[in-house]
């Protein structure tokens, strides 16, 4: 296969890649000007629909279809919220895009606003992303100065105001209705649906929430066309009638026990094994991988034997993972205790559960208490059954919670118990000796 030339990341290693002049000299904003001049918003939506673009935030919902859920002929205002609360652990693709090529993102935002008829866009950046926030803020100001934001953009009747918003560091603000609540100045408790945000979102107005990488893809689709986008990636799996295909480039974050962690842009559908060996430099210290988290903590685990799984929207599900997630691949080697891995993950979700729905609030904390006890050498074999049961019970899929945080909290737990049960059992049975050895190993890292 010929080497893939990055598109989304094409400009990131240039000097001053975040400045508008540099961006414009590279042909930036031409697509936007062309679209405003020559295309109706409906044509933009149709183009994005035709490209098969699916949201890059994790759930993979078709972007063009999401846009059509807005009420027809709404008198406005309609809002576009940009979800840059990139809080899935080990995920940093949005950060790189915002820091290194904020105008690519902003052009995508303006194009998306044009398509959905939004008069105001809120760019919600997580608290921890200081550099990204400032880069986006500068980009917004530069765009205003050049007449690319504000009233009557490029002499058209299209007006757009961009508002930067900094979150206060909570995982739940990445959930779209949690984000909207937080944006409104409230506690980020996800809303019950219906109404969906497209009908009643921020400030009770129709609202579209899109991810940074998604809008960057929108910009590339306008420039390079739907056919280009669709020529990359994987068509729908005929065995899965619900799969809409995984087209276009994807930013994969590689982290954990690899020789070369980092961000790479590749066509959708690369296998995990290839990603690790070709692009991550292989597992470190000449070890073997014990497992991989394919797309952020909430997606579950792949074992070594499952690493030929393709990283597209359909692939991870085939080996029992929740999905592609954010495409953030975290590798842990065969010296790592799965108990420690799960301990960390459970601690994360117990800490980040917003506390609204009972099953998630109590379930995540209970799972953490159990795994904490197991790790300290006081586990019981029946604890594994409880963990698996609770992991299965919580989430929107069984219907017991409002948002998907609980699905993501339960998934790694049930995956881990199912795929690594023997290790948990021996850890529990061998008790203190094993715990001491592991603690010793950990202190050597």
């Amino acid at each position, binding site marked *: 296969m010929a080497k893939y030339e990055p598109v989304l990341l094409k400009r990131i290693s240039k000097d001053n890649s975040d400045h508008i002049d540099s961006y414009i000299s590279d042909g930036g904003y031409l697509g936007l000007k062309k679209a405003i001049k020559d295309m109706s918003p409906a044509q933009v939506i149709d183009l994005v629909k035709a490209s098969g673009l699916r949201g890059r935030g994790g759930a993979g919902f078709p972007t063009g279809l999401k846009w059509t859920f807005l009420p027809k002929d709404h008198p406005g205002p309609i809002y576009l919220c940009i979800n840059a609360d990139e809080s899935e652990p080990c995920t940093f693709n949005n950060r790189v895009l915002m820091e290194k090529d904020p105008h690519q993102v902003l052009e995508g935002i303006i194009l998306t606003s044009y398509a959905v008829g939004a008069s105001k866009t809120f760019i919600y950046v997580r608290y921890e992303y200081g550099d990204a926030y400032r880069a986006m803020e500068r980009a917004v100001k530069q765009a205003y100065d050049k007449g690319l934001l504000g009233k009557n953009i490029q002499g058209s009747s299209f007006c757009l105001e961009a508002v930067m918003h900094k979150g206060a560091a909570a995982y739940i603000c990445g959930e779209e209705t949690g984000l909207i609540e937080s944006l409104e100045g409230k506690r980020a408790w996800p809303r*019950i649906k219906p109404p969906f945000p497209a009908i009643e979102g921020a400030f009770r107005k129709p609202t579209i929430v899109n991810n940074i990488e998604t809008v960057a893809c929108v910009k590339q689709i306008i420039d390079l066309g739907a056919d280009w986008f669709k020529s990359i990636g994987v068509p729908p799996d005929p065995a899965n009638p619900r799969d809409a295909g995984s087209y276009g480039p994807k930013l994969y974050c590689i982290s954990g026990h690899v020789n070369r962690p980092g961000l790479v842009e590749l066509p959708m559908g690369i296998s995990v094994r290839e990603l690790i060996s070709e692009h991550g430099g292989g597992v470190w210290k000449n070890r073997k991988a014990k497992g991989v988290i394919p797309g952020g903590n909430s997606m579950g685990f792949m074992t070594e034997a499952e690493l030929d799984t393709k990283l597209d929207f359909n692939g991870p599900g085939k080996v029992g993972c929740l999905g592609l997630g954010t495409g953030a691949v975290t590798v842990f080697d065969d010296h790592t205790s799965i108990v420690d891995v799960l301990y960390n993950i459970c601690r994360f979700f*117990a800490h980040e559960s917003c506390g609204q729905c*009972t*099953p998630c609030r109590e379930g995540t*904390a*209970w799972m953490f208490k159990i795994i904490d006890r197991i790790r300290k050498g006081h586990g019981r074999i029946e604890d594994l059954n409880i963990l698996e049961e609770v992991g299965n019970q919580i989430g929107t*899929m*069984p219907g*017991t919670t409002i948002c998907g945080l609980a699905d993501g909290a339960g998934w790694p737990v049930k995956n881990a118990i199912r795929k690594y049960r023997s290790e948990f059992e021996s850890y529990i049975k061998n008790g203190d000796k094993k715990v001491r050895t592991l603690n010793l190993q950990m202190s050597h890292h």
Partner: protein
Amino acid sequence: MATVYINDKAVDIGDKKLNLVQAAELAGVTIPHYCYHPALSVVASCRMCLVEVGEKKPDGTVVMQPRVIPACQTPAKDNTVIQTATAKSKSAQAQTLESILLNHPLDCPVCDKAGECKLQDYSYNYGNSESRMVDDKNTPPNKPDLGNNISLFTDRCIMCSRCVRFTREISGTAELHVINRGSHAEIDIFPTEPLNNKLASNVVDLCPVGALASKDFLYTHRVWNLKTQDSVCAGCSTGCSIHLDTNKNVVYRLRPRENPNAQGYFMCDDGRLGYHYVNSSNRISKPNLKLDSGADISSWKDIMLSLRSELKAVASKNASGVAAMLSPFLTVEEGFLLATFIKSISPKAKLVLGPVPVVGEDDHYPKTRGSVPVNVKFTIRNEKCPNKKGIEEVIKHFEGEVVLVSDYLNKNSPDALFIAAGYQGEEVSWFDNNLLSQFKKIKLLITQDLFPSALTDASKYVIPSAAFSEKEGTFVNFAGLAQELHWACVPLKQVRTDGQVYLDLLERKGLLQAANIRDEISKSIPYFSRLAGGKLGSDGIHLVNLA
């Protein structure tokens, strides 16, 4: 017309907009719930009301949704199918209860809510008998000073957020909020902003568990020893429907009783906590007649005989020399019986209205910042008496017009005045010095009241009144809604209810039966014609058509 199928039973819900909890209620099926409350917005967060939901297709087949659904959040539509008793629904509910109980202290033996706790009830009906958690529970510190009247037992809280929504949506004062995240989430106030609004104690009733406790009731009584009687708050002319919780003739607690005709779901703290005078040891406990010789008589029989003959003697000298003051705290029946008695002494005797206590302005809720007009959900009225409307109508029937006692005494000097006061409350006197000096000019003063005062000292006859908890009768609120009081306590040994005294004075035999008197009133006073038959039901009857 919409038909909903609950556990295979078809129920016609008409064109009412109901959620599945309400629709199931119509079918007599309880779907357990914590966070849902009909007066508050729906958050669907407790996940106690999870049920299986489906749809009956035109061809009769039923398609069930694969996941369980919160009933409170789901509107009941034509052909909705609800299954509450299937293994899936039951297991979802049991799972939620297991989760809720993980960090609950299970300190029922020392918890005020025990006996009326939804956590106990649901655990018994829907839960597991054992907890599988062997780890330590969270032990957040209690917050005994959440408000002047409210204490928070933080560890008992199940985070239903009803209290938070109440302060935001009903009182509009927004003192309460949630702090922290996940299983460390707690209800809290902002520093220096305690939960002290006038509707605050409603959060205690709203709390489905024992987290929010009323300091007034805390540790005073186990609820299973209480006897509950339907009644009406006598605090203001809103006339909130209440539950009166008593034991052995002591009032322990007032709670709002849901009544869409009256106040809705709630009551104010002034009314709720303003009952203590009922249990006071200072109350007038026996009738008294001061003879000219200085001796006292306290036999009901002698006093009744003497009172009747003295009044007759006054009337025989001066037909318009007898008057009676009817306080707006009397029930309609009492007012009617006293008026009938006074008119039987002399048809020219005068009936006047007692002072009507008014404090400030009507107090509307929710409160808002700024001047944005709001949808009023609760009003504490400035007219601090329960039955002005009813007594006015009685007086109007006999006199044609309503004259206040002070206005009457400014222009007239009767020889005898029967003061049927019965003003509730111990702290504030219902008369001022002006009125007292006018009273004192009258030769024959008969005072019927709850507490001794300068007026009872000056009266020849002193007759004890019964408190609102000790009698039955009718109050008519500001809007013309007639509601029924039921006796919940027996008055002190030597106290007769006001109505009984008038019945005795009229020489009518037997004990007072409010329903019979109501029926009698409905026939003689047109305003009260809707009381015919004497039965008011628990929601009361509007005496006039609402605008």
